[in-house]
């Protein structure tokens, strides 16, 4: 039985127009590039359709196919190491009483602010051909499997920890009291209450780490040596051999595990019912000297590991001539000596990050609002939702490759974007679209759903309520999205490595190039500058959140 067709108000028309525009935009920046990539895999070098020929040759070339196995191997081992480690750390942060908890929390986040090649560079200083501790390897080499895994553990640690902290923080104290009252042993409580409660977090963390490792490019590039993985293969096929069709095939192979992990995660999370009901009592850990000491020790060791890697990169960047002349210098920061762009690549990065933060935040928040608040129009809203979720499942390299094929295609009216700063910004926004969209959606779901009804009854245009009420209320989330985009834009390598032009080279890409040319110190220096910039922005954000927002948003106070 069809509902009475209700006429559309001007608000409805504006909103629907917005949703259609958003769908079209997402199609252009996400859907079509992926489609172009898919199509490319079925063409030969001259653009003739060859069916599955490229795939056949991929799977029958052991050198190529081996990389896929290598990628899976590295990802599996890294996951098995990172997840338990992050679980211990997250458990310490949420369920025990740590001295200087904020410090441990902060240290765990450091890797997020670094481009992924940073841990690779640090490992070269420590264990490389001329490394300090090379002797410890006993003839072995850090280049290859071991080096990649160690660097990946550093790089993925904060992502897993953040997920597990969230999972462990949402515990209901009443469950523990009940278990205590029933006289259950500590071990039994852990296995019957704690672990099941964190089950979905653990699955999610494992899948995220797995995907991060499979899709990361920087680490394997720097410290992979002759150990080939999918990500480096894509790069070699495209940049080295200019074999775009084979690049596309490897990209599709790279997409498969990432997309699969994403789908599994979605299915699992859907099963999760809200463990935390409105009446749950938050768990506040009580001091327990023995346990607290053990966990403080664990956290200290992990923190030392993280700081050692960061510290090594910083120190290395300040050294004159490793390992023969250890005196300190700022020469390595004079990037013009190592790369034609000099400091320009850094400023390009900053420009790109600011652009992505501004344009991306506006787009993601407005887009999430349009998708949430438009009345009816389910089909188009569904398309938007799908396109907004897609980037999460797509590795940066794959998206970047799709951008080449799509924007560089002859006759594409958007071709003028190719090799501009614009395409870097658009690509970065598309690459990180999902998280921003989800953050905005969550924030919007938390505010009273009747605001729009009230405005309609008062005959106030809906966009007015958006700008006067909805957006100001969501300001903290809007800032979160902006910072997230800024930091990721500063550090990303994979999605932009195919898209820069000589004028728009980014710092992270320059670091890869400099390292390729053999100057580890300058590459490390560039990474350090990136870390300092993104961490500084984050710290300013935290301070602003604490002091400025409080003053601006007096209405939050009771």
């Amino acid at each position, binding site marked *: 039985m069809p509902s*009475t067709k*209700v006429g559309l*108000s001007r*608000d409805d028309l504006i909103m629907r127009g917005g949703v259609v525009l958003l769908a079209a935009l997402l199609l252009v920046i996400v859907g079509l590039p992926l489609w172009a990539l898919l199509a490319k895999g079925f063409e030969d070098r001259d653009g003739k359709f060859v069916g599955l020929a490229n795939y056949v040759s991929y799977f029958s070339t052991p050198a190529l196919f081996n990389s896929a196995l290598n990628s899976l191997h590295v990802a599996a081992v890294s996951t098995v190491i990172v997840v338990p480690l992050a679980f211990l750390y997250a458990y310490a942060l949420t369920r025990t009483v740590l001295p200087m908890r904020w410090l441990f929390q902060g240290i765990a986040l450091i890797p997020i602010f670094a481009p992924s090649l940073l841990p690779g560079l640090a490992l070269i200083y420590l264990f490389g051909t001329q490394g300090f501790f090379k002797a410890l390897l006993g003839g072995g080499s850090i280049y290859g499997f071991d080096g990649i895994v160690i660097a990946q553990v550093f790089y993925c640690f904060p992502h897993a920890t953040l997920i597990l902290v969230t999972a462990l923080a949402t515990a209901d104290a009443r469950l523990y009291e009940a278990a205590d009252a029933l006289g259950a042993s500590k071990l039994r409580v852990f296995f019957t209450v704690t672990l099941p409660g964190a089950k979905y977090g653990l699955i999610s963390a494992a899948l995220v780490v797995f995907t991060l490792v499979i899709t990361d490019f920087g680490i394997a590039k720097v410290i992979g040596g002759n150990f080939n993985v999918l990500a480096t293969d894509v790069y070699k096929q495209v940049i080295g051999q200019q074999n775009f069709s084979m690049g596309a095939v490897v990209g599709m192979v790279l997409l498969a595990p990432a997309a699969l992990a994403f789908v599994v995660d979605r299915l699992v999370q859907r099963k999760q019912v809200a463990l935390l009901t409105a009446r749950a009592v938050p768990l506040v850990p009580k001091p327990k000297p023995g346990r607290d000491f053990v966990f403080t020790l664990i956290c200290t060791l992990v923190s030392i590991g993280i700081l050692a890697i960061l510290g090594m990169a910083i120190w290395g960047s300040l050294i004159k001539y490793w390992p023969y002349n250890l005196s300190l210098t700022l020469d390595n920061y004079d990037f013009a000596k190592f790369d034609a762009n000099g400091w320009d690549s850094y400023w390009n990065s900053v420009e790109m990050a600011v652009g992505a933060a501004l344009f991306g935040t506006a787009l993601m928040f407005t887009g999430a609002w349009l998708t949430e608040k438009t009345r009816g129009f389910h089909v188009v809203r569904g398309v938007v939702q799908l396109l907004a979720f897609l980037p999460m499942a797509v590795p940066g390299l794959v998206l970047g490759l799709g951008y080449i094929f799509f924007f560089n295609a002859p006759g594409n009216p958007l071709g003028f974007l190719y090799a501009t700063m614009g395409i870097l910004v658009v690509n970065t926004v598309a690459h990180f679209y999902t998280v921003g969209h989800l953050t905005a959606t969550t924030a919007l779901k938390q505010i*009273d759903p009747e605001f729009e*009804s009230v405005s*309609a009854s008062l005959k106030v245009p809906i966009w007015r309520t958006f700008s006067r009420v909805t957006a100001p209320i969501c300001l903290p989330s809007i800032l979160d999205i902006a910072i997230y985009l800024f930091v990721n834009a500063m550090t990303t390598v994979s999605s932009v490595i195919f898209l820069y032009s000589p004028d728009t080279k980014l710092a992270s890409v320059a670091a890869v190039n400099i390292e390729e040319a053999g100057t580890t110190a300058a590459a490390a220096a560039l990474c350090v500058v990136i870390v300092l910039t993104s961490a500084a922005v984050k710290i300013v954000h935290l301070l602003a959140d604490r002091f400025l927002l409080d003053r601006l948003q007096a209405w939050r106070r009771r």
Partner: protein
Amino acid sequence: MTYLEVRSLSKRYGDFTALGDITLDIAEGEFVCFLGPSGCGKTTLLRAIAGLDPQSSGTIRQKGRDVSALPPAKRDFGIVFQSYALFPNLTVADNVGYGLVSRREKRAAIAARVVELLAMVGLPDAGPKYPAQLSGGQQQRVALARALATSPGLLLLDEPLSALDARVRLRLRHEIKALQRRLGVTTIMVTHDQEEALTMADRIVVMNHGAIEQVGTPQEIYRRPASAFVADFVGSMNFLQGTLMAPDKVQVAGVDLACPGQDGLTLGQKVNLCIRPEDVRVRDLPQGTANRLTVEVTELDFVGAFCRATLKARATTDVAMTADFSSNLIRDLGVERGTQLDVALPPDRLRVFAA
């Protein structure tokens, strides 16, 4: 004059019928309550009238204009939600003036109107405060002032008092009612609190399972419930199972009781004979009083202003009912557990429903 005409309104969610064929007229200036148990479709009906969740079929006319297919922004109503939906980042004055600003009125005129509205709801000094700094009852009044600011022809209230504590609720009942009477604005209020409906409404629409059970003044609903559901839902009611022996006689557990003449029922049919606890008479029972029974008081619960007694007929313990006795009566007659009394069930206070 009919202000709002609802005709054959239905609302379906998939296979589920939330509202089935609702027809209702509301007069100009009337205060109408939608009353019913949770999930009966009160909110659904209110939101359909506002256009927020349009009906599946049926029509709505407001002041003679067919609004059935109009979006909310093109209808004429003010609304207050259970959550109040006040804008937390705007001051009380900005909240109240929210609908006035977009009408391009002069700043001074808006300010004056806001002052007037705030005075009207008894919060003359709240203007510069933020909603979070007000109590629940105060927020409720601000929401009311905001809804009334644009002088809508129809005021819709969805359980406006349910989030408040009992005392505040009682006071606001009177204030809202007085305000409504003063402004003469046609008002629909959704509630599941029968006392609220009885004290505030000019007319009550009792709903159940997406259908209207009865429409009437509070007195009609209370005194002459049209169905067993209404009888049970509004106020307390004794249900005595019996058989209709004659149009004006019901036999309950072997005892014949006189009742008002029935014509919709067939003789010999199983029926429920209903009487409210406060209608059971104890004093002034002259010889020949109809429906006289000798009962024993088996329970006596103190409820404050009165006591609720459980009575069992002596002739047959199958007849049991509750009755409300005033403190005076209990003192005068020395009623306590085990006391035997003569009571009467006045025929004009009895209602008969098919069982």
